[in-house]
């Protein structure tokens, strides 16, 4: 699920911009605007970038990875470990 924070929540995007982004990138997975319900809930060290932020959730709804930087191999391994 791709999640972007809305303007009113301190982010940048609204639904129209996200729709444009979907068209520009061609992504097919679910994409949504986060209205503050989740983005600020994650443990977040202050000295790192707000993006990327990737979370892997297992089948029981438990958080198994929080990735704060681009680490494709780590993300892939975490997903594959759950499949």
């Amino acid at each position, binding site marked *: *699920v*791709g*999640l972007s924070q809305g*303007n009113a929540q301190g*982010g*940048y*995007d609204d639904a129209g*911009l*996200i729709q*444009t*982004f*979907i*068209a*520009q*990138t*061609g*992504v*097919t997975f*679910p*994409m*949504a*605007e*986060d209205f503050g*319900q*989740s*983005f*600020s809930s*994650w*443990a*977040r*060290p*202050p*000295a*790192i*970038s*707000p*993006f*990327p*932020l*990737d*979370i*892997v*959730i297992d*089948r029981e*709804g*438990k*958080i198994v990875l*929080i990735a*704060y*930087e*681009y680490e*494709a*191999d*780590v993300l892939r*391994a*975490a*997903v594959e*470990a*759950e*499949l």
Partner: protein
Amino acid sequence: LFPRWTSPSRASSPLPYLLALITGCGSSSTDDGAPHGSTSATSSTSTDATTTSTTSGGAGGAGTGAYEDNFVQLDRWSKANGSPVNWSALTAELLDVKRLDSYVYVCTSTRGLVVVNPDPLRIAGQIDPLPYASRCQHLAKSGDLVAISNRSDAKSPTPFVSLLDLTDLAAPVTVSTYVSPSDSPEDVAFLTPDLLAVAMHGGGLALMALDGSGQLAVQKTLGGFTNAWDLALDQGRLYVADDTGGVAIVDVSTPSAPVLLSHVALGGSVKHVTIGDGMLFASAGSSGIHVLSLADPDHPALLSTFDTPGSAVMSEYDNGHLYVADWNEVRIVDVGDGTAPKLLGTETVPSKTFTRVLALAALDDRAFVGEWSALYSYQLFPDKVAPDIALVTPTLLFPQTPAGGESALSLVVANEGPQPLRIESIQGTDELVPLVDSLVVPSGGKDYIEVRFRPATSGAVEADLVLTTDDPDETVVKVYASGNQPGLQVGDQLPSWSWLDLQSGQTITTSGLLGDVVVLSYFATF
């Protein structure tokens, strides 16, 4: 900022992390039984981290400080070095860098188009604001004309292509601007001095020219593309980075009548193409770089693919070397004949915040690197050899750990240089305790430093682990560490949330996701 999805086409590698929450402090051995680090190896606690580790004992043989780095920073340009122009070093976000004629042209996110003298780096001119915003996504130049583009995003919602006359850098003139809310112009390339090709994402390829009234207008469009991102022109052929469609080849020998010839299927999402010495280099994000031969320009043939640790955003070829903007570092590759590219060097570019390399240019072994907040120039010395430290785990983020308890992470360190890397000291704090105090990593190898987090209280902690090394340009490496930050942690249950899926119109609930493995990826459209 695009969500950076992994590509199934790239081979996976083992999880390089060690993460063990310890309250009683257990112990175990490494998978190969080899010692890691020079001290305290017997007390280390390990899970699967050693799957990527190498034995460090006995490596080396060269004296400390005996090497010279092969990619040397010459200059840095930002607000600090005397520019009178309106520039915020923290928000500029350099998006496109081109070395053309006697200048370096820089597209920025919030400060328009900047023209820079290369040596030393000093501003020669700036066009800000641009006709519809200060955001310049891509640029192309023909004579004194510069075309710039901007796709729609949060920071600049109006998509446009603008033609500027830079005959007088002190007094630039906007010739004409094309605006169409329904379009998403990305890269631009002059097919002739009067005819501009524009990659339009799902809209394919547009040809633009000034019409009879002097307005920039679409003259022709060409379909058949998956998602046109980037353009490279070579000998009557226009090569189009076409996302998951690979690379498209367009015959533009008659520029006003382009013909889509074919596609070359490649792995990943191709968003940039560049050409040099009869080869095409396609940057495909997490799938790395594809190298293709243009011996038959209508049927490019794949020579090789090499991966990068980050996301290969774009690249530029010069003098036998490919410079790769790899999201958070620069990588320099000796291309050779294209069949077996060899890593020549890497460089983590300094940053005021978190380093990002989204664009660069290269000419005559000189590279101009667009970091998030500044423009740097570097000189490549291909024959110099040195160790080259790379942090596989760039930060140490410890989980919630009670006061008086302990948790452990491993800092995975790679040596991407041709000489052994000596980490001569490893210094922590009372609460951040490395279990080794030195390390030698052989050329091309990896090893790890186990670090314990022993908080005195339950409050949030930030500290640096400081490494001193014989990497000539990274003699001191500070690794950011943090622990006990408030908020959701690994091991917690996902709360009850819901969102509206803008793709399907359906509501997504976290309870509805149970039973599936899910990735939540936060992004912003800029």
